[in-house]
């Protein structure tokens, strides 16, 4: 890897890695997993840097890669989670009784399907527009609207009393 190229990659890393880790953390709820995902994302993008259509749009590629890798991890975990019996999952009333409200919201957020959670995080944390969120999720704007609407409705349903 030439020095000039390495310098450019270093610059990209220090400019975007922090945000990428925070995004991955919100998507996975696990700091170690977030770090692994961001490492993987940078490795993939660095090794394909010359092939990117618009290297200047690195941030967009990075976000998309982080979302996709988080989704892959979510799928793997879901397979594992499906093996766990419902008896091991706390019921809503039990959760309510022993957790603080904000912890309950976190629990509800993490219970959302990955794509819905990704849409919420990109819209309300990364502050992307619907169009930009659609670009990262590689879907239509209508699908983003649907995902956000369903996620918000789902949170409201789980959080009656907390949300108006």
């Amino acid at each position, binding site marked *: 890897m030439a020095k000039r190229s390495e310098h450019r990659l270093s610059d990209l*890393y220090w400019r975007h*890695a*922090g945000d990428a880790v*925070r995004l*991955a953390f919100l998507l996975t709820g696990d700091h170690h997993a977030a770090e692994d995902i961001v490492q993987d994302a940078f490795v993939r993008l660095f*090794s394909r840097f010359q092939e990117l259509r618009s290297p*200047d749009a690195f941030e967009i590629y990075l976000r998309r890669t982080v979302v996709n890798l988080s989704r892959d991890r979510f799928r793997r975990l879901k397979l594992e989670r499906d093996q766990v019996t419902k008896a091991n999952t706390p019921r809503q009333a039990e959760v309510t009784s022993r957790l603080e409200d904000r912890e309950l919201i976190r629990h509800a957020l993490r219970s959302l399907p990955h794509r819905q959670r990704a849409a919420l995080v990109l819209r309300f*944390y990364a502050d992307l527009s619907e169009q930009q969120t659609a670009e990262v999720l590689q879907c239509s*704007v209508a699908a983003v609207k649907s995902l956000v*609407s369903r996620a918000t409705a789902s949170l409201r349903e789980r959080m009656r009393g907390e949300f108006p």
Partner: protein
Amino acid sequence: MSDVEQKIAALLHEEADKAALTAGMYQRVLRRAKIRRALTATAAGLAVIAIGISGVVMATAIRSPSSIEPADPEEAPPVEVTPIRDVFAEQVAASDNSVWISGADQLYVLDPDSNEVEGVVLEVPVWGRIAVGEGAVWLAGWQGDIGPGGGTPPSGKVLRLDLEERGRHQGDVAFEEVGEVIWRSAQNEAPEAVVTGFGSAWVAEKLGDRILRFSPDGAAVTHRRVRTSLTEISVGNTPVDLAAGEGGIWVVHTRSDPKHHGRGDASLLKIDPATGAPSKPVPAGTCPHSVTTGAAAVWVLDFCDEVVRKFDPETMQRLGVADLPSAATDLAVGDGYLWTVHPEDGVILRTDLESLDQIGDPIRFGGGRDYGPSAITYGAGSIWVSGDGLFRLDVR
């Protein structure tokens, strides 16, 4: 942003602050990148094979299972599904003799007789909606930089691509040769929808609560531009989709803020193309977000209520409601049916235009909630489905 959305945003920021970079991560990334780059160079041939295999897998996944069950398959004529090769399609617009597809920063034109791509209009990074008619292809949405050195922040624009000028070329052509940017958003907000009809292109601008009407008068300005007048029609309440037909331009409004739902601002209105005057809006459910016309009716899709409502274009009275088994994101009327797209189930459904009952098998596409179909349109005698590749549907 609503109270609920503000709470979610605050929580997400609070959560995100818990995450931070750890020492040594950059060195690990760099080391792995160098190894991967070396391996990638030697594995390029294998990658080509892998891509070929994944294409086969996608094709076989079209009939994968989903939660939506068949309605009454014996009653319905079958639908032939034809995958279109070598096209990444986000949005599609079809005229009688050409199909225009936007996706992957490019605009394709397809010959519907051969299903082959005739050419690509290069470097048109537009993420938004597309329409064909009135002598042009119209793109409305976000657009980044055009030409070499792209990657500048996208901004809301409307682009016009002259069909006559495009017709002088064969194969690939640069956008600068055949198209022009005809409108830029002052507030840097992307338009929501574009349709053509009644001699004009109509664009919904949500932030400005208005419809923009572009009327080309045919007089040439340059070799690729014609004089186009702009009329702004105030319609209020965040217009999100448009349809042209059945005697008017139809506009649906919704509210992104859920607390407004059910207060009558989710509505349908009609613009008289002769006068440009909007009608009084009529209630159209909870979250109407797509509208189309056909079979002497106006059809409004509501993704919250998971229904399509059928309206009389003359009286604007509701004629009926088609219940859907799950939320849909787009609809079309053509080939004798109402068609709806259900991305999370990865299916297209057919509904009878009179009984409003679901007809036939769900048409299944691979990918389900992650990469399902998302948009649908009717033109050139077929239904076209985009979102994860492009598929042509024909009733046999």
